[in-house]
């Protein structure tokens, strides 16, 4: 690989833009295709298919065996609520290679003592969230239990294409939340995107166990084909 190609891969990844490197495995010839250039590439069909699946693999084109290495952005977890569960969730998500950010306007909660080494934003969601550029490679959880904070955060998540949205609260709490969000313009489709009660049902009791159930559900959403993910969650 040319150093320049490697540098470009690193730049695209740092900017959270997908990039694909095509290698002719017979001779090592290589080229890089940025996400924005896929539509005009001769291999656009194969490239967009591999990117959609988030999978690298070999293809054959014009008698050549080509390896398509798909570099999708690192998955990110945005946690709204610097609560006890988040103190367990943030390090667990980091151990699973997520980039983690915690948002909570309540400075007593969002303190570096409670969250060592985790990027913390002690602002309301309307200030904190837009600069984060929540995207398709982001999982979003709202766990403050306070509608003043969770509701605007969830409305922001609906407007983005995040692959997972979860919110803490019982079925009853969630039903009330759904009513409030609809009154603020959320659609039934938006509401249906929320995983609530949050996490896979593994009988979790402690904050750490709840963190495990949340990360298990997020992993299922990220990795399983869509229908299978729903069965797991049911």
């Amino acid at each position: 690989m040319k150093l320049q190609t490697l540098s470009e891969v690193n730049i695209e990844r740092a900017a959270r833009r997908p990039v694909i490197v095509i290698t002719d495995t017979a001779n090592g010839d290589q080229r890089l295709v940025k996400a924005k250039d896929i539509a005009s590439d001769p291999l656009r069909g194969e490239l967009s298919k591999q990117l959609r699946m988030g999978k690298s693999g070999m293809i054959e084109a014009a008698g050549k065996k080509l390896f398509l290495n798909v570099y999708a952005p690192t998955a990110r977890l945005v946690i709204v609520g610097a609560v006890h569960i988040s103190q367990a969730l943030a390090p667990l998500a980091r151990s699973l290679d997520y980039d983690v950010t915690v948002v909570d306007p309540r400075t007593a909660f969002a303190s570096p003592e409670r969250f060592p080494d985790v990027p913390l934003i002690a602002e309301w969601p309307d200030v904190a969230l837009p600069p984060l550029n929540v995207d398709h490679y982001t999982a979003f959880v709202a766990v403050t239990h306070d509608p003043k904070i969770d509701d605007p955060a969830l409305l922001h998540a609906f407007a983005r294409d995040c692959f997972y949205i979860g919110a803490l609260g019982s079925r009853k709490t969630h039903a009330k939340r759904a009513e409030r969000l609809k009154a603020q313009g959320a659609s039934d489709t938006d509401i249906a995107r929320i995983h609530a009660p949050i996490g896979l049902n593994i009988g979790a009791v402690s904050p750490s166990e709840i963190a495990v159930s949340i990360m298990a559900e997020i992993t299922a959403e990220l990795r399983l084909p869509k229908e299978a993910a729903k069965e797991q969650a049911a």
Partner: protein
Amino acid sequence: MLNRDEDILQAAEAWQKAGHGVALATVVETWGSAPRPAGSSLVINDDGTFLGSVSGGCVEGAVVTEALDVIASGQPKMLEFGVADETAWNVGLSCGGTIRVFVEKVAQS
């Protein structure tokens, strides 16, 4: 974390810029129950320092040795590892899968 693919590729770039010979080994094909999917990578420098993985740890030693050759020659290589593969290396994948690993040098131009 120093284990994510993006950290690994950043390390490769940094090593190269610091004057090291660097090779990149990437899983390009897998059959059966391979431990790491296509696209997984391992970077190696001429000190023998490496980051990342292409298997559960079973063939890394062999890949590093081959990578040092690739750094010296500049010529890319395709390696194949499987249970019954005795052609190149007597190192098999205990899980029963087969993997092909493409090893290339990170070059200035």
